[in-house]
Every structure is written in structure tokens, then in C-alpha cells.
């Protein structure tokens, strides 16, 4: 109920609202999705009260819809994020972000001696912990955790 009211205040006509982003990862989401490089109108709010996350962030992107694999990219830093797809001011679809079992590309392996950081090899990980998002490198078998994550 509250949500709807909130949306109608700063409503976008068409586009995507990404909600439930952990506040500290807002700018990571922006950079992963390349939102800093697109011409669309974007509003975002951060450090909003959230029962689930403590402090959350929200992004509203006008005239933009995301593909599945783009959403997977967000999942790594915002595993609980929810996408509202807006058409003509109405939420026509809600999408939950899901952390995949395997991640290809996106994240760099934390191990400087890993083949993916030495030769032209796309990093690949198995997600060993979906909650805290910790990744085991398919190649060097080292763990990259949330804290040490760098993005390609």
C-alpha cells in the first residue's frame, strides 16, 4: 500500500524501479549496470529506512528495461533486490533478483596469481554461499567474498 503511494509521487511513466538495494552497494549497482553512461532520466534515493536491510537504496530509470543476464549482474551486490517494471505508470511486472549458481564474467578473481588475472580468460565462479555471496573460482579454486569483490 505504502509502496504504491510512494511510487505515484515520483512516478515514472515507463521504465524500471530497482528497490531493496543495500545502501552501501548503490553505486556498485549503478556502475555494474552502466547507469552512469546512459542518457535516460534516473532518480535514486539512498539511506532510506528498510526493515530488511537497515538502510536501502532505490533507483528509478525511465524508459529502460533489463535483460535477465543484466539482472544477474545486480544479484551479486544486491541479492534481495526487486525490480518493478513500469508501463504507463502501472507496475506491470515484478521481478525478483536471484543469485545464480554460477557466475561468468562480471567479477574479478581476488587472487592475483589466478590465470584469469594473467591471461585473457573470462573469470568463472561457483556461488558457494548465496546469502553472503561468496564465490569460488572455477580455475584457481580460491574464494572471492563480497568484501574483496572487484568488477570487470
Amino acid at each position: 500500500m505504502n509502496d504504491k503511494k510512494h511510487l505515484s509521487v515520483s512516478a515514472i511513466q515507463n521504465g524500471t524501479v530497482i528497490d531493496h538495494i543495500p545502501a552501501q552497494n548503490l553505486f556498485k549497482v549503478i556502475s555494474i549496470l552502466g547507469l552512469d553512461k546512459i542518457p535516460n532520466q534516473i532518480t535514486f534515493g539512498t539511506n532510506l529506512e528498510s526493515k530488511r536491510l537497515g538502510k536501502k537504496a532505490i533507483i528509478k530509470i525511465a524508459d529502460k528495461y533489463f535483460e535477465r543476464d543484466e539482472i544477474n549482474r545486480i544479484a551479486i551486490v544486491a541479492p534481495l533486490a526487486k525490480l518493478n517494471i513500469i508501463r504507463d505508470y502501472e507496475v506491470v511486472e515484478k521481478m525478483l533478483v536471484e543469485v545464480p549458481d554460477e557466475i561468468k564474467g562480471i567479477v574479478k578473481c581476488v587472487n592475483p596469481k589466478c590465470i584469469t588475472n594473467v591471461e585473457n580468460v573470462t573469470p568463472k565462479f561457483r556461488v558457494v554461499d548465496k546469502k553472503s555471496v561468496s564465490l569460488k573460482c572455477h580455475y584457481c579454486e580460491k574464494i572471492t567474498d563480497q568484501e574483496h569483490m572487484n568488477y570487470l
Partner: protein
Amino acid sequence: MRNRSLVSINDLTKDEIFRVLDLAEEFERNPIQRIMEGKVVATLFFEPSTRTRLSFESAVNKLCGRVIGFSEASTSSVSKGESLKDTILTVANYSDLIVMRHPVEGSARYASEVSPVPIVNAGDGANQHPTQTLLDLYSIRKTQGKLDNLKIVMVGDLKYGRTVHSLLMAMSQFGASFTFISPVELRIPQEYKIYLNELNLSYEEHTDLAENIKNADIVYMTRVQRERFSDPMEYEKVKNAYILRNNMLEGTKPNMRVLHPLPRVNEINTEVDNSPKAYYFTQALNGVYTRMAIMTLILGLK
């Protein structure tokens, strides 16, 4: 295992491990067989490891296969800037199987993905060295008559020691209990303790060597290297504390054997070499039988 690469010990099921050990036993009884005739094995050593390379080459030679390769990167096209992928794709044209040692971690997994012929990982940086683990398992089974429910004491550099980590993972499949003896700075990483806890396997941690080997079935020694210490003072303090001597063997179990992946520097006093409990040179010989078995199974020759 036919036509499959061997990159990590975790690639093998328990049954496959037994298959390797059983075949190695067969080769120990009858080491000269002409089964690899007409096969070419490439040994690509992007960093030198004389012991491992010679062990593989001896294994191929005893089975009448042929060996090509290089023993360090400077004598190969890598020094001209060739990528690993290009090297592998080229050498795969010349060989039926590639044995590879490389300083970069994950390089063997990557090679196995691009190579049309199977890859045997002979060490990729600090990551994996599965044939070492298999020869350790072979040595343990041979000296103890079994792999189940043994007491394994690991000594030395337990933080960085690749061989101890792989052996720990492998032996935990067989319900081993562990004693870790190391300087504080080189303790076994937390992730392995968590792993053992999850499996409900018991372990102890100590800093004193002599006191804690009395109940051991296997004492697995490793080298404590100066460069592993952030504080050189720490190294000076502990460097002599992890040297195994003959008098420490008194009161140990009769079936106990001392293993070491070699090369040894001074962590096992040479006086121990003549003890019936010293097993590390035979362990190296077992490496040849084990590698014969691994290559034979991968090439589908038995």
C-alpha cells in the same frame, strides 16, 4: 578416467582413487610393460620441478612411451610471449597427453578446457598437485594396509603447503583424525578446520613436535621456509623447532612411517634416513608407479 584430464584431486571419486592405487600396485609388481608403445607424452614445465618431471618421464619410459617437452619456460616459446592457449593447442598436435607444471593458479584447469588431449596437472602454483596426493595415498595405504580411520600428523608449513591441504581433503574422505603441528604463523587455514568440523572429524593443533607424534600412524613432514614469515625474528625463533630427529621416534607406534613430499632441507635430520620408519625415498619411488597408473588409465590402455 579415460580421456579425462586430471586437474584436481577433487575430480576423482573414491572408486577412481582406488582404481589408480590398485593399478599402481600392479605396476609395482611388474614395472616394465610395453603398453605405452607408440604414445607420446609431452611434459611442459613452465617452471622447473626436476623431481616431478623425472618421475613422470621415468613412468613413461618404463611403459615404453616417448617423451617430448621442456623443463623451463625460458627454453620454450613462452619466452617469446606465446599465450598458454597457443602453446597447448600446438603441443596437443604432437602428443597424446600433456603433463603440465605452471606457476599460475588455475592454469591447468584452463588448459584442460582448451586442449583436445587430456591434461595431467603436475602443479599449478599453490593450487593443486593431484599426482602428489595420489602417491601420498598410495604410500599411506601401502604402509598401513588401509586408508580408513588413520591418525595423520602434519608438521611444518601448514598455511601455504599445497600438499598438506590436498592430502587433508583426500584423507578426510576416509575418516582420518588429524594433528597439526606448526609455528603459530603457519597454522592450518581456518577453512580446513571448518571443513573438518562439518565432517565431524577430530583434529588437534600444537606447536610442539616431539610431544605430539606418539600416537601417529603417519607423520607428514614439510619444509618451513624463511620467506613465509613476515617477521624474520619469528623464523629464527622457530626454525629449529620443527626438525625431526631419531630420538623423537622412540615410543612411536611400530607401524608409524615418516613421509615428506621432498625436497628436504633440514627438517628431517639425516640420521632418521636409516630408521625403518623413514619412508620418504620409497614414497618418491611410489610416485613413479602412481603416475604410470594415472597415465595408463587416462590413455585408456588398461
